[in-house]
């Protein structure tokens, strides 16, 4: 029973991927050649490739540098800096793009795109690397220093190898997010696969062109995902000793304190200050032309309702998979769990495109309805819920069931008195993660929302696409405010919440 439910969930998660694969087979080799081997695709590949490589490199440098300063050096105000460096995650990338291009219309170039998305994404590297720095045993560094290594050699030969997994993991996350990024790049008028798919879709609705572009994009994602999977196998280096590690004695910066502070300040100003300033600026500008409070309230209400429904549905769907992954660990259940991860690695634009097409063909009565939108949210955000549900089920081992039985509880009583109370916090956390993700979801909502249903993201999008920056600002502010709690969660437990 549980297995059948989990299988249904996995099937839903794999639906978009299956659609792309099936379509490719239908089109056949000649069709693929005609649609894919084009100058346009080559241009998109070049654009996407150089943006991904550039962003990953920039994020790695920014992330590792900032993490070292905050975790290992004696730079003043380390706790404050930590929060400030995670805070950019509360600003959705497309809001960040809007903030920049509305102030500086000239950032619609490769360099501009590189700057903006790096500022949005570097926390994805910063967080796991900072966590890894925290996990490093200072005894190793002391041992290395005792063996005569210089400070720089200790970093290169002792710390960096231990950070490798965290750094690669963060970089892959940046790359995967970037491949799926649509709003930010569309706003900056930087053409990549996602924006090209969207334009094709707008022009020809569901032409083979869009689907084939989606196929190439999915292929790129799968390559990265494969790298991620291989990396997970070798995640982390464990401390060999027992007991708690001693606290770290931070490295004194002396004369370099000034430059270090200036560097961190510049990063925070660019990543956080600019968007916040821009939002404030446009809020004021917009206020002079009149703020439509009623519309803002309705839209916020709609968004919250959608997010709550999605959180509920997605968590419920995650339950069978998460339960089986712990209680009935085996090949089949691992396969089901991985399927949902695989499904949600597909960019939102592709998920939306696939669901639109499938709905129109197979279930026209579902097209442009809330359930279809919720299905898209579920496909995209299932892993977040599954990871937390899984963790919760691990907190409720079988032993408790046995004990409750030996104390005279029936199955129903066991569920009520033991299992559910133990699962509740995990289920709540999973639902909260999905909720917050849906609040700022743009791409799938844009394609799938029923006519007349506007969310904060789509209202913001239509206003800013029409260059009504002042009208867009209030929606962005509400999104940022709603995302802030998620940022707090992330700054607490970097690794778990970051890995999709």
């Amino acid at each position, binding site marked *: 029973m549980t297995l059948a439910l989990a299988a249904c969930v996995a099937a839903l998660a794999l639906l978009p991927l299956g659609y792309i694969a099936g379509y490719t087979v239908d089109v056949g080799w000649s069709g693929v050649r005609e649609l894919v081997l084009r100058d346009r695709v080559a241009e998109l590949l070049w654009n996407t490739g150089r943006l991904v490589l550039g962003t990953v490199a920039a994020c790695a440098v920014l992330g590792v540098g900032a993490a070292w300063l905050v975790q290992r050096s004696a730079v003043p105000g380390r706790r404050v800096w930590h929060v400030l460096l995670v805070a950019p995650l509360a600003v959705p990338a497309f809001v960040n793009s809007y903030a920049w291009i509305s102030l500086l219309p000239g950032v619609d170039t490769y360099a501009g795109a590189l700057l903006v998305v790096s500022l949005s994404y570097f926390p994805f590297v910063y967080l796991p690397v900072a966590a890894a720095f925290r996990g490093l045993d200072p005894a190793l560094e002391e041992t290395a220093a005792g063996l005569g290594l210089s400070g720089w050699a200790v970093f290169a030969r002792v710390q960096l190898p231990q950070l490798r997994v965290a750094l690669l993991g963060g970089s892959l996350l940046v790359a995967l997010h970037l491949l799926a990024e649509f709003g930010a790049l569309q706003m900056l008028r930087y053409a990549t696969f996602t924006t090209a798919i969207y334009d094709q879709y707008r022009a020809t609705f569901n032409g083979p062109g869009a689907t084939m572009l989606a196929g190439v994009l999915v292929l790129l994602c799968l390559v990265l995902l494969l790298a991620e999977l291989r990396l997970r196998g070798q995640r982390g280096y464990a401390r060999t000793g027992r007991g708690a590690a001693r606290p770290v004695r931070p490295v004194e910066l002396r004369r370099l304190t000034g430059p270090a502070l200036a560097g961190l300040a510049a990063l925070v100003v660019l990543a956080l200050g600019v968007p916040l300033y821009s939002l404030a600026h446009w809020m004021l500008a917009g206020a002079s032309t009149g703020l439509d409070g009623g519309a803002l309230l309705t839209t916020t209400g709609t968004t919250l309702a959608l997010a709550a429904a999605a959180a509920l549905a997605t968590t419920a769907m995650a339950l069978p998979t998460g339960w089986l992954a712990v209680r009935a660990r085996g090949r089949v259940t691992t396969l089901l769990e991985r399927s949902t991860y695989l499904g949600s690695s597909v960019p939102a634009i592709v998920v939306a495109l696939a669901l639109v097409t499938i709905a129109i063909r197979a279930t026209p009565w579902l097209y442009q309805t809330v359930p279809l939108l919720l299905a898209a949210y579920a496909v995209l955000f299932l892993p977040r819920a599954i990871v937390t549900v899984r963790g919760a089920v691990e907190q409720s081992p079988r032993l408790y069931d*046995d*004990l409750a*039985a*030996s*104390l*005279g509880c029936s199955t129903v009583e066991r569920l009520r*008195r*033991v299992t559910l*109370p133990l699962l509740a916090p995990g289920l709540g956390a999973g639902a909260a993660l999905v909720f917050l993700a849906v609040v700022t979801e743009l791409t799938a909502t844009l394609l799938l929302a029923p006519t007349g249903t506007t969310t904060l993201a789509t209202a913001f999008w239509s206003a800013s696409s029409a260059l009504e920056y002042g009208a867009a600002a209030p929606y962005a502010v509400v999104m940022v405010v709603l995302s802030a709690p998620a940022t707090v969660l992330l700054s607490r437990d970097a690794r778990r919440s970051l890995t999709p």
Partner: protein
Amino acid sequence: MSALTVHDLTKAFGATRVLTGVSLHVPQGGFTALLGPSGCGKTTLLRLIAGFDDPDSGTVLLGDRVVAGAGRGVPARRRGIGFVPQEGGLFPHLTVAENVTFGLPRRRRRDRARVAGLLDLVGLDAGLADRAPHQLSGGQQQRVALARALAPEPSLVLLDEPFSSLDAALREETRAAVAAALSAAGATAVLVTHDQAEALSMADQVAVLRGGRLVQLTDPRTLYRLPGDLDVATFVGEAVVLDAEVRDGRAHCALGVLPLGRDCPDGRARVLLRPEQLRLSAPEPTAPSARVRGIDFYGHDSRVWLDLPGGLAVSARLEGADLPAEGDDVSIAVLGTALPFPSGPRPARQDDRPPPRPVADVHLESPVAAPAGPAAG
């Protein structure tokens, strides 16, 4: 409280046979230890008794009620068996009081006096009642787990290695408190353990399991003095095992001519001594002699490693501060009797168990006849 009778219990997981024909009787109010190394099937046996798993064949009786086997299986919740798992297994979302009263009917769960009484039974202060489990020490958690198991007045209490996660000092104290609580409650109890000292000191009956079979079931003293075979002998305590020739009811071995603890046919045999039976004195020409190779000093007593002239090594356990020095030549006297195990062709056995691992060969290859020691885990 009722007696527990296990008859011819067999259980396999897939192709792996975990229990084979185990029969066991625990009298009402008795305390039986299931002793065996890891993987011998003792936890499986416990789970079958508790009703968490079903046996492939055989029966489990509580008093004269069949709870498993013979075509019926009473579910765990209707067996009235208390269970104390390894790490306590307190429900983390409930307070101590809520844990203790978990198995009681709803209206009796609020009875603070009952909670206090149960905590008192296991030697805990009633002030702990409102703590969360994670605020307790490991030993306290185990005691709360026992109180929880005893609260519904079960017919039988099962304890699955409840002390193994505690450190040495806490273990002693918790053992004493648990033993006291069990006897105060007059509970029939079965304790699973791989620690021979725990089994010998706490239980009034020890069942030794090996490879899914019951090897010996007897009281602790008999088990230590008259182990069924040399494997059991070395598992339940340190041992000195020597090759010997039995003639006219006496064993002729490297430590001289020793009286036997039981009848044995003439011929080759292996004899068992305990290290505390060996006494050392200044060299005498008539007594068997040895040279002191090393001394492990424990404070309350010491282990002295001795090289015998034939290349054999034995150990002696000595009390007091009057110890020889390393390299000294000493004479060895043996107190009491040696327990013979005939080697050579064995009489036909009743079961089809393979013969015990030949300790003799091991001992000849490396000339250390002792101590197999308290086998850990």
